[in-house]
């Protein structure tokens, strides 16, 4: 168990650093075991530095920066031991348009390179446009959910039709 944890730590740490600078367009980030001699009882610290800024405590990061850092870590853990499915419920809500674009680009890359299937819930039109297929959930009868397939070329049709 100890060797497995240390091996996983090394792989996750490496891909966390790579994904962080991919999502932030620079900067660096790394993990540290608080007690490297006893990994099975140790804590895991996160150090991150957006491009051009000083390395700082995560609590001083902005809402969007915390989300991006977290996405980098989730995907780093996930790439180490890929799951058959990954579900992301409105992770793009706090992001500005250029970061939505970066996250979508990373998602497309991961979907193309592996077998994992992704389910992405979003209100962002930019994210909708990057999906392979779209389903809409409607409550045309109040309180009762139904699932419909949505024509990708016209997500607006769907949004307008159901939002009424």
């Amino acid at each position, binding site marked *: 168990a100890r060797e497995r*944890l240390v091996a996983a730590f090394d792989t996750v740490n490496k891909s966390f650093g790579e994904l962080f600078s991919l999502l932030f367009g620079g900067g660096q980030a790394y993990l540290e075991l608080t007690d490297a001699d006893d990994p099975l009882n140790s804590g895991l610290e996160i150090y991150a530095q957006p491009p051009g800024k000083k390395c700082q405590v995560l609590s001083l990061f902005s809402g969007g920066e915390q*989300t991006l850092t977290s996405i980098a870590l989730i995907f780093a853990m996930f790439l180490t031991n890929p799951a058959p499915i990954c579900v992301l419920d409105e992770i793009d809500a706090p992001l500005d348009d250029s970061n939505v674009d970066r996250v979508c680009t990373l998602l497309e890359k991961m979907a193309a390179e592996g077998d994992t299937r992704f389910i992405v819930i979003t209100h962002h039109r930019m994210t909708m446009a990057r999906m392979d297929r779209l389903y809409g959930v409607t*409550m045309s009868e109040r*309180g009762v959910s139904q699932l419909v397939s949505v024509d990708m070329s016209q997500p607006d049709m769907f949004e307008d039709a159901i939002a009424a």
Partner: protein
Amino acid sequence: VQFNKLRLTGFKSFVEATDLEIGKGLTGIIGPNGCGKSNLVEALRWVMGETSAKRMRGSGMEDVIFNGTDRRPARNIAEVTLHLDNSKREAPAELNDSDELEIVRRIERDKGSSYKVNGKNVRAKDVQLLFADVSIGANSPALVSQGRVADLINAKPTQRRLILEEAA
């Protein structure tokens, strides 16, 4: 394994049998506030053996059963079925004899939950082990609930190491 389809019946706001086909690559789910998108994520966690009612945003597990609208009565049963492609035969031995796996979880008011895999009654533990073997499960960091994306970085250091261990 591959996740192919999720079917909900009487689960939260999905009172009628509803199928979500899960294809390759990126599947987007859209819709207005309160229409039931996050309920789908919970259905997936639930069929994989979720034991905490709080993670289902309810006070008891029976809160997942359709509780009625101003025009429809409440139901007494909720059921979720997950269809997996097992052609790579990755399931535990006793469940590994077929190309398709159909996992069903069902809850009835005052009677609790029961699980079936390909028609055979199994325990919650068996279902949880099945998913652990294929690196997914109700608590996997790969299932990111709404508003919880930053939970991982806000967790305490020892909590983070535990998540890393699970992902190993």
